[in-house]
């Protein structure tokens, strides 16, 4: 089994995020592997352990993304590829990311590609499906179970709280939903070995990609934080009066009735 996992370095949305000048401040932000990609990595490792083969984690980003790749290697991936666009591109979008990944993967022998259901930063959920389309292979999104028997694949996918069972064949791209597995903590021997595992660094040139080919199609108009949740209000007084006041407030202040 030749397994590829798409991994994205994202900021940790559970930590404090500061927006200034229309951009998220990278200084002081904590960076992690996109949590959905962790399910993808875990699933890839489990499938490799069961069926044999190799797991390669791939990311597009800058030099800093090496940390997340090393973490994936420490979890148990075999090899890592960093497509470094730092010097060539200011921006990436779903289109350009999928294009670059497709150029990298098009002449590889691929049995299975795993990606996260969405990246928690952009949240588009498009890169996986777009990539599958460019490669001309099947894809299934938001999966919660994956069984492989030869080239036959049985999948359970999450459909807004319900489940759908599908059958398909390799080669295949899937995107991982929460519930697919319980991602492992990197083991200590894994951490100690991660540095010695191969990590290939490529630039657009190495993939014969012209900067014009990957001009972004999405324009970001504005980035802002969700409004601060205002403190709640506790009403007091007679119950009758409270109910009256509540209805009144819902009508005049919250304007929901």
């Amino acid at each position, binding site marked *: 089994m030749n397994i590829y996992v798409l991994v994205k370095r994202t900021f940790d949305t559970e930590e404090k995020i500061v927006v200034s000048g229309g951009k998220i401040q990278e200084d002081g932000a904590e960076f992690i592997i996109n949590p959905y990609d962790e399910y993808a990595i875990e699933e890839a490792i489990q499938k490799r352990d069961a069926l044999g083969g190799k797991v390669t984690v791939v990311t597009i980003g800058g030099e800093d993304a090496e940390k997340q790749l*090393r973490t994936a290697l420490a979890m148990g991936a075999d090899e890592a590829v960093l497509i470094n666009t730092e010097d060539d591109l200011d921006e990436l979008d779903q289109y350009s990311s999928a294009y670059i990944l497709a150029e990298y993967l098009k002449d590889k022998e691929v049995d299975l590609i795993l990606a996260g259901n969405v990246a928690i930063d952009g949240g588009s959920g498009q890169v996986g499906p777009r990539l599958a389309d460019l490669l001309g292979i099947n894809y299934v999104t938001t999966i919660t179970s994956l069984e492989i028997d030869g080239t036959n694949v049985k999948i359970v996918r999450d459909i807004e709280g319900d489940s759908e069972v599908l059958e398909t064949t390799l080669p295949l791209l899937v995107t991982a939903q929460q519930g697919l597995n319980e991602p492992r*903590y990197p083991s*200590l021997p894994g*951490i*100690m070995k991660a*540095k010695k595992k191969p990590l290939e660094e490529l630039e657009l040139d190495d993939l014969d990609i012209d900067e014009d080919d990957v001009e972004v199609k999405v324009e970001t108009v504005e980035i802002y934080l969700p409004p601060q949740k205002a403190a709640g209000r506790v009403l007091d007084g007679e119950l009758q009066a409270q109910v009256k006041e509540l209805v009144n407030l819902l009508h005049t202040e919250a304007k929901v009735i």
Partner: protein
Amino acid sequence: MFFDLTDEQRMIQRTMKEFADEVVAPGAIERDRKKAFPKEIFQQLAEMGIMGLPFPEEYGGAGADTISFAIVTEELSRVCASTGITYSAHISLGGAPLNLFGTKEQKERYLTPICTGESFGAFGLTEANAGSDAGGTETRAVLEGNQFTINGSKMFITNASYAKHLALTAITDLKDGKKEISAIIVPTDAKGFTIKDEYEKMGLNASNTTELILENVVVPEENLLGVRGNGFKQFLQTLDGGRIGIAAMAVGIAQGALNKAVRYAKERKQFGRAIADFQATQFKLADMAVKVDIARTYVYKAAWLKDQGRPFSKEAAIAKYYASEMAMEVCDEAIQIHGGYGYMREYEVERYMRDAKLLEIGEGTSEVQKLVIARHILAD
């Protein structure tokens, strides 16, 4: 000078931070209340290869350094000091002397199960009449033919109920009234060996503290650990390493208490303002942060010296003395900032303080650390 952690150390820190918050923290109050040993947590740590952290790979260890050991101990102690001391004793009292003084066969037999987590590590030094004055040992081991027969008892021994074997000190000879003290490895299931887990402690309730009673316990002569008569020297060397563990625990507990105090101070409103707005609270928090930071830096220094193969005995004593005392001060202030709530179990800082007190006592009291430091200074 280079003040950064290595990539590996940072990854260990990140992993252990997540592990501590997600796996260790949730049951800490309950384990303290029920005196429940964190067995499942250590099963997971064993699967992650953490139980043999600093020991050679050929015995199932991971070959990581002392700074990494300090990082793991700090992170565990930040959320549950009982888990922290169990780990610290396992590595630095249980595994370390085997690794330092054991023969290849002894390491294969006794260090490997410690690395895999099959056995916890423990070390029996303290006795009823031999605490700070560890040379006061009264336990006797008499060699007849090629067997030691051991009689005596040990007090306050961490992890022994969960250890398959442990090293302990005993008098192996008397020459002109002078004791010859040696270390001997004893299987805990040996005939005549009783382990009692009956202490009622002030803190560290989820850790295992035991009394050992040895009545005509027979072990083969080959169970001698290191050189006969070197028992005293060997445990002094063992304790040097252990003190880094205790100091790292202190940093973890204090950091945990500081984190809780910061969060609480921002949330708690009195006189119409968050108490964090009062300079009185701010100065407390600043003092706490200063202490934690200085202690951590010094723990890393002692650990670094050890990793470099340089003398670190004085530095380990300084780290242990300073860090354990600052942990008590920081916990005290953390409770103070919590007001009446800090006195309640639910807010956890009271447990932090009960747990921290041991650090000024175990592996050499603060006074003993000062004796060690003074001895170094006066010898310079």
